[in-house]
């Protein structure tokens, strides 16, 4: 008879927890939908802006700074993808892996220093 491997079993448990967790939210929101009143008044559905009528649209300009930090994040988060597997098999790779990783981290560090010197890290 076919039996599920340990790997499959573990991730099935993960899937079940995820589905149950999302289902719990759905259940609570649905339950609240049955219990709560719904008295529509146009004033209630105006966007909140400290009590006065909203001025203009929400689609205002936002700072480009946020995107710069998002780009920097992508650069450094890739690092995590490499560091975790290497750290797990540290002993197997030994000195060779250590030097390799040292070079890799050094290059990334250069990137950070470059961004720093360029003034990207300064919030204007």
């Amino acid at each position: 008879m076919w039996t599920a491997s340990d790997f499959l079993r573990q991730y099935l448990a993960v899937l079940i927890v995820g589905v149950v967790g999302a289902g719990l939210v759905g259940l609570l929101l649905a339950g609240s939908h049955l219990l709560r009143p719904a008295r529509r008044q146009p004033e209630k559905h105006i966007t909140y802006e400290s009590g006065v009528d909203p001025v203009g649209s929400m689609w205002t300009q936002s700072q480009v700074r946020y995107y710069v930090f998002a780009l920097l994040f992508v650069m450094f988060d890739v690092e995590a993808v490499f560091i975790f597997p290497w750290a797990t098999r540290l002993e197997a790779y030994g000195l060779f892996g250590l030097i390799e990783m040292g070079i890799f981290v050094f290059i990334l560090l250069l990137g950070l220093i470059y961004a720093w010197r360029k003034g990207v890290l300064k919030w204007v």
Partner: protein
Amino acid sequence: MERGPIESLVHRLFAGLYGIPVLGWLIPIVLVLGMVALAALVLIWLERKVSGHIQSRRGPLHNGPHGLLQTVWDALKLLVKEDIVPSSADRLIMLMAPFVVFTPAVLVYVVMPFGKGWTVANLNIGLLWVVSVLSLGPVGIILGGWGSHNKWSLLGGMRSAAQLISYEIPSVLALGAIVMMAGTMSMDGLVAAQDQYEFVLTPPGLIAFVVYLVTALAELNRNPFDLPEAESELVAGFVTEYSGFKFAIFFLAEFANLLALSMITVTVFLGGWQPPSVLFFLPDSAQLPGVFWFAIKTTVMVFVFQWIKWTLPRLRIDQMLNVCWKGLIPITLGNLALACVWLLLTEKSWAR
């Protein structure tokens, strides 16, 4: 003894249908979810009590002994509150946000070792799972901020994105140093690697612990990093347009995350369910079950997080980003090198 068809089906569901114990899973999963829900209720009460006493007032007092029932009544009140969605908002995205925030908060607990062998699923990539699942939470926050069609919410969502992705890097790098020392990413393996002494007692472990504590505060949107929902600047940040139980779910998720991060800190740095190594003089007979130690350490960590939140003022956004990019990231990168040196000094077998 002959089994009836239903009885044999139940038996098979417990023992394993194709090796999958469908019903056998229900017990741990229900236990974990129940614990998360109950803990969130208790933690909200504790938060208000701790904040009250730190600020020389008393916090909730009148509902139940020491105000213990306050959160229950609050939750019931929110359950029957009208749900107001602004007419210009994106209803679907606004509805999605609570799901996207809450589900990862629950998924983290899958790999948590509550005691010896007390794990729902001992994934071999446990720590990576924790990191990746926790980074899904911000997506929900941005969805909520974006879908509300409100300037406050959008600003809160944007700030939250900048903060959470920035602090994820030092968090990951700090945990990387620990993975180097443990040689495994499985949460059970991390606990087992600390059977002699906790990682926090080693120099690279101590630095990683402090950095992780700071990043955990940022990931929880807690003071001094509570810019996404800074109430004196942004009304309520990304939850401004939320009302009723959707609002409650954000806070349920926040406190579930607080508990989760405390448990991760305990597991990764403080020896998990093992008794603290500084208590080595305790005779074996006095040793208590692992769940007990895990609960004690987690409670202490939760208190530390609340203590910090209610003591420190809020940082400005440029200060917040400076601390991360110019402070924590160089420190954690250096810490990786320190961890290498430490391993070369302590583990003779490793240096070849």
